[in-house]
């Protein structure tokens, strides 16, 4: 089947098999490997991307369901070679260790700040509760999101 959608601000049209997931579409067809697969059942959040302004697990969306959708991935938030403030603050706060959860984590935080520019600590924790991190204990990630909210 053929789908048309917007990927990181670019219009895309592509022929796909109906049995692939959005995650496969991004990684295999567009080589956007920043989006990771950790559990395949929507529990770990490593595959989180933005779909129509909301965070979703790209392992739980079929590519064929993305008709007309606007998708943003980790590769799409750096603008003109400049890091997004979230990315900057992840670096400064020590929010990254192995980094495998980082793209998904950043996308969840990005979606939160889209709709809620001044989140409380509890709201931040809630927004990233679906993103498992085994390295950091979350504290420095929450710090990074708080700092970003203050800056923008």
């Amino acid at each position, binding site marked *: 089947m053929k789908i048309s959608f917007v990927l990181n601000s670019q219009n895309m049209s592509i022929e796909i098999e109906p049995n692939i997931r959005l995650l496969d579409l991004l990684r295999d067809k567009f080589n*956007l*490997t*920043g*989006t*990771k*697969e*950790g*559990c*395949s*059942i929507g*529990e*770990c959040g*490593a595959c989180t991307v933005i779909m129509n302004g909301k965070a979703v697990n790209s392992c739980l969306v079929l590519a064929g369901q993305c008709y007309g959708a606007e998708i943003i*991935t*980790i*590769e799409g938030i*750096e603008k003109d070679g400049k*890091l997004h403030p979230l*990315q900057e603050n*992840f*670096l*400064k*706060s*020590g929010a*990254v*260790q*192995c*980094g*495998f*959860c*980082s*793209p998904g984590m*950043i996308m969840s935080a990005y979606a939160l700040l889209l709709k809620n520019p001044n989140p409380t600590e509890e709201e*931040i*924790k*809630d927004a*990233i*509760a*679906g*993103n*498992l*991190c*085994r*390295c*950091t*204990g*979350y*504290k*420095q*990630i*929450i710090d990074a999101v708080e700092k970003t909210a203050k800056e923008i």
Partner: protein
Amino acid sequence: MNKEKFNIVGKPVVRQDGYSKVTGKAKYADDYQFDGELYGIMVRTNVSHAIIKGIDFSSIENHPSITAIITHLDIGGSKKVGPIKQDQPIFCFEKIVTPGDVVAMLVGENEVVLKELAKKVKIDLEELPVLEDTSTALASDSILIHPQYNSNLITHYPLRRGNVEKGFKQSDEIIEQTYTTQLIEHAYIEPECVTAIPGEGNIRIKIIGSIQNPFTTRRVVASVLSCGLNEVEVIQAELGGSFGGKDDTMNILSARAAVAALKLNRPVKIKYDREESIIESYKRHPYILNYKIGFNKDGKIKAMKIDLLADGGAYSSMSPFVTWRSVVQATGPYQVPNVYTDVRVVYTNNPYTGAMRGFGSPQPIFAIESMMDEIALKVGKTPFEIRKINGFKQGSVTASGQKLSGHEVTLHKVLKKATDVSSFNKKWNENKNSAQRVDDSPKSFMNESLVLKKNDFIPPDNLWKKGIGLALSYRGCSLGAEGIDAAATYVSIQPDGTVYLLSGLAENGQGLKTTFSIVAAEVLGISPEKIIYLEPNTSRVPDSGPTVASRATLMGGGATKNACEELKNRLSKILLKEWKLKSASDLIFANGIVVYKGKRPKKISFDELIKTAYSKGVNLSTIGWYSGPKVHWEEETGHGSAYFTYVYGCQVAEVSVNVGTGEVYINNIWAVHDAGKVINLLGAEGQIYGGTTQGAGYGLWEKISTHNGKIRENNFDQFLIPTSKDIDAIHPFFVEGKDKFGAWGGKSLGEPTLELTAAAIANAITNATGKRFFNLPINIEELLLRKKLYPESLKRGSTS
């Protein structure tokens, strides 16, 4: 030792690999693609213990999607591997000993089709009784899991000190209790993935994967291929977490991929999904821990008799080393004149167990720290007082007879700091008094009908009880008497003053690239931003042993410092000559400038100095080497200097317990660690946040349960690791004890942060409820019923 003033060490520094990781550009194993690559899909059985009579591929072998079927027959070298005992087959050919076992690998282009075909392979099996339980496996008439050995016992470590029976006779009181700990999964978020690429030129095979210890992988692959180490090149892709878990499994996957790639002369990738990862990878050892402790009314411990029984699962893996750490540290950081310890680890048909962050320490710490609180209650002292009375001091002698010297023994410092910052003593006493009232209330769920009586109900205002608990430990740094302990770092200054750095140890996400860059930048007096850490590759740098045992900062930091000091000496020599100075000690390398602060001060920029050096033909590349001093161990008696230095830590946990539902919420964890000199501050704090969070998961939620050897929890919907909402606050503190080893005495932190948390939480729960809990994890059922509930019942430890 720690007199120096630091410019970069101990300050927040952005990670070397940070930019690529926050932009999605970092390449993890599955992010690599190679032209013509094929996939390898495993063929497994659905049994736990059986003799393989035959494998019939006839129903699938001519299928167009199959390029090759790989079995043990394709292996020219070692068919079985293992770090200590070579008992684990790359492909099983004699027996199935655990459900993760693999008999063959289907190779082809379409992994989806191959997965379907894998189910159709007919394997003729003669099933054998499944050994699930360590004591059954040890029975003299038990069937042997590996018939080539004459027992299911993998290792037995005794430790004998003084006369334990005499010690008990001299004691006023004796407590004996049994504790148990559970099987858990590392739960790195990135599942295993590796690609083997047939080599070009003299390199036979190139391996790129999610590999914790590239040199170990190289050794295993070379042995399986029966070729020279220099013919195998192992490159570590960006690693998505490991925690000790991407060692044996990855070595074996690499070997399978390598055998297939060489047979087909095409790249072969193996990529596990979460379920396969949990089914096949090794886990943390479950222990049954029996402690008998004699002590006097003043709280002084006289004797300990300790019996630890660990489940090694189907393969020995690192079990002998894991349990060796247990025998060294089983008595905790306490002075005990009479000790009689036996540690055994046993083969069963359960998932095999091996290295995991903590490595044989979280289990005994849970038991001994629970017992210390029991002793405190018995003699009417606080947990703080009982540890103050018995804890190691400078020059104390450990159970194995090692005198603690040559480094600062900071046990009492960390204990005092942790109890001070948490107001431990006050809170503990208050909670204890209110907990007593709850326990007195006649609340028993255990009646036949399960229906509550009227006085069983708990008023909403009394539901949540606060508790505070602490745990204290000492930990031997690095490998100790387990093995040869040395590491290398390559440093090369380029003509423009930028620097390449590469260590033989591996970045596992912990931040080693950054830590070593900080060490190098500090010595050379430049910004860490001028340093690029090279791609880890076994053919570019000397074997530095595995990145385990919290040894990277200590050993690799030492090697990096040595390398940079060597280069600094070479640079200083140039200046001594140019500026006609007598001693290099007056030269200061800092902030990109070299300064001489003598009568006639001089200075030169680092970059300028490098230009000069190049113009004079000075070699500005070197390999630094750092090796630990000799340690020894007597296997028969358990005597010896187990480790050349130690670290100390104390954690306090404050929890709220819902006595109606069994839920536990962690309000605070104060983590005080002496890791020696803190090199990488953000990284060190990250270790504390991450380690305590893992430790909390171990204490409260995480468990892999098995039935007939088969795993129930095979994905993150059932294996529950902590989320962002499960812990309120973690407060890290560092006590920088002095040490002569490593880079300015920078020692170990990764594992100490994890090993204490579950024990501290258990003690906090006891403080809140007035009840002792003997079995990890203390989940909702354990808390209310003091037992685990499974679809099938499993026997656990003490019930009262």
